[in-house]
């Protein structure tokens, strides 16, 4: 028996399998090395990086909800310089693709990040976060208007030699329009969805459970919404789509692939089961073998409509 072919390509980015880890749920890779053979993964998307370090929001920052969690971390990160000097030496050696998630408050900041990271050895692609709901200016505006999404994508593409993936927010009335904006701006792929804005209240104290009042909902609770959006976007654009949102098991990953995603990102599941991403890689291989399929491409977009 031949080993199942899990390889996919996201534009010019080749992956040994379609399983990535979602930004903000996998640290800088090293945190998961005790649990996961990192080189088994299709790639690692690291915690979002901004030009300057960010402190993030005051606590409490997370609260568990039904089959999910709300977070308002506030994009805490070490900043570009420390990322390059402290995190990249390790990431360069993990034996899989390193995708750097970037975020900024202005077009210039995105451009600078794109340019500087293109000069760093060992990075395979950029994922542009235009969708984080937690920062009051910048981030959210770029992700909710198609023209702004196009502008920021164009800005990064013009200043970077790396493939650009644009990560989309679900907190919009028509996500397909935003995806078309990113495509028009030159994105090689879009990834979706980021978290859904949500809220939780402590009825005893009558206070919000998050210091930021609102936060991003993630986990199995959001999977049906994410799947629907991935399906819609996959039909709306010609570039590859990366599915994200509550993926916890191999079956979840298969649903996204069938809906038209070329790859997937495992997010909150990493917190629950640190081995989740590797288990999904193994599970996809078994699925191909069990179903006598020669490659994962036979699954992608294979949804049969009534």
């Amino acid at each position, binding site marked *: 028996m031949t080993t199942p072919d899990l390889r996919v390509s996201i534009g010019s980015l080749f992956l040994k399998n379609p399983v990535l880890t979602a930004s903000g749920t996998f640290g800088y890779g090293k945190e998961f090395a*005790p649990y996961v053979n990192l080189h088994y993964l299709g790639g690692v998307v690291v*915690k979002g990086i901004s030009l300057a370090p960010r402190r993030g929001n005051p*606590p409490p920052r997370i609260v568990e909800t039904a089959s999910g969690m709300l977070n308002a*971390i506030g994009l805490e990160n070490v900043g570009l310089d420390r990322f390059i000097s402290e995190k990249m030496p390790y990431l360069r050696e993990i034996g899989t693709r390193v995708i750097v998630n970037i975020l900024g408050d202005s077009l210039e900041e995105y451009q600078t990040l794109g340019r500087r990271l293109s000069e760093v050895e060992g990075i395979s692609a950029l994922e542009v976060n235009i969708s984080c709901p937690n920062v009051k200016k910048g981030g959210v505006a770029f992700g909710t208007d198609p023209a702004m999404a196009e502008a920021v994508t164009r800005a990064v593409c013009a200043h970077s030699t790396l493939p650009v993936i644009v990560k989309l927010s679900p907190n919009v009335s028509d996500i397909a329009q935003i995806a078309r904006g990113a495509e028009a701006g030159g994105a090689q792929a879009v990834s979706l969805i980021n978290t859904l804005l949500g809220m939780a209240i402590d009825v005893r104290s009558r206070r919000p459970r998050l210091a930021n009042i609102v936060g991003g909902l993630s986990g*199995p609770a959001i999977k049906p919404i994410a799947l629907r959006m991935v399906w819609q976007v996959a039909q709306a654009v010609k570039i590859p789509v990366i599915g994200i949102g509550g993926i916890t098991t191999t079956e979840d990953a298969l649903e996204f692939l069938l809906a038209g995603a070329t790859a997937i990102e495992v997010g*909150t599941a990493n917190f*629950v089961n640190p081995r989740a991403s590797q288990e999904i890689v193994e599970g996809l291989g078994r699925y191909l073998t069990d179903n006598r399929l020669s490659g994962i491409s036979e699954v992608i977009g294979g949804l049969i409509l009534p």
Partner: protein
Amino acid sequence: MNKYEEQAEVLRQEQLMPEIFRLTLRAPEIAANARPGQFVMVQTSPGYDPLLRRPLSIHQTIGHDQVQLLYKVVGKGTRLLATMTAGQQLNLTGPLGHGFELAASKAICLVGGGMGIAPLYFLAREILRNTCPPKCVVLLGARTAAELGPLPGNFMDLGVTTHLATDDGSLGHHGFVAELLLQHLDPELKWTVCACGPHPMMKAVAGQCRKQGWECQVSLEATMACGIGACLGCAVPQAELSGPYLHVCKDGPVFKAEEVAWL
């Protein structure tokens, strides 16, 4: 530091008090590597409700392969945990975080409030394992005697001097456990004080220690999703308020009291 994911077997579930349980598990990798003050993340349900693991400090290790947890039922996760019986399996990750550090201390005082007592038993046993153990005093507090249950006896059985305080005066000193520091610690000695308990208790202990010039280590608690420094949910402000947040799971859970902002 080595971290593991282990499918642990429940060996014993003991109900010590109406809401407080002691769970003994076979988890050889974690048991062999755990240090006092470290914690584990416990998957309380195989499904999605609750979704996240629960962080619990290690109460003690027994022999070479057992881990014991002492916990109070406070919500859905711990309620499910309390239904586990011998022979069932439970997934743990750990040992996580940094524990207490007692390199050269000659006089050590452990201060525990409520469920904060849990990791101090592991610490007390570790201190006493020393061939020439330092002076050790244990101060335990709770709202009422019933909340302490057999715990004071457990410490006394180790042979350590143990003093008690309850908010309602039902056992020991009528008042806060932090008030016992000045009553029972010889001010001539250079104490290292290790505290774990509710925030106001640790704040009071840290304040006393600062006045006396004693070293103080505190074990903090925070809501966290991962326990390994990825989610960044367990942020606590550091003493230098403009500096970056500390993270309980990877920078702690044990901190030097002066590193932390006592707001």
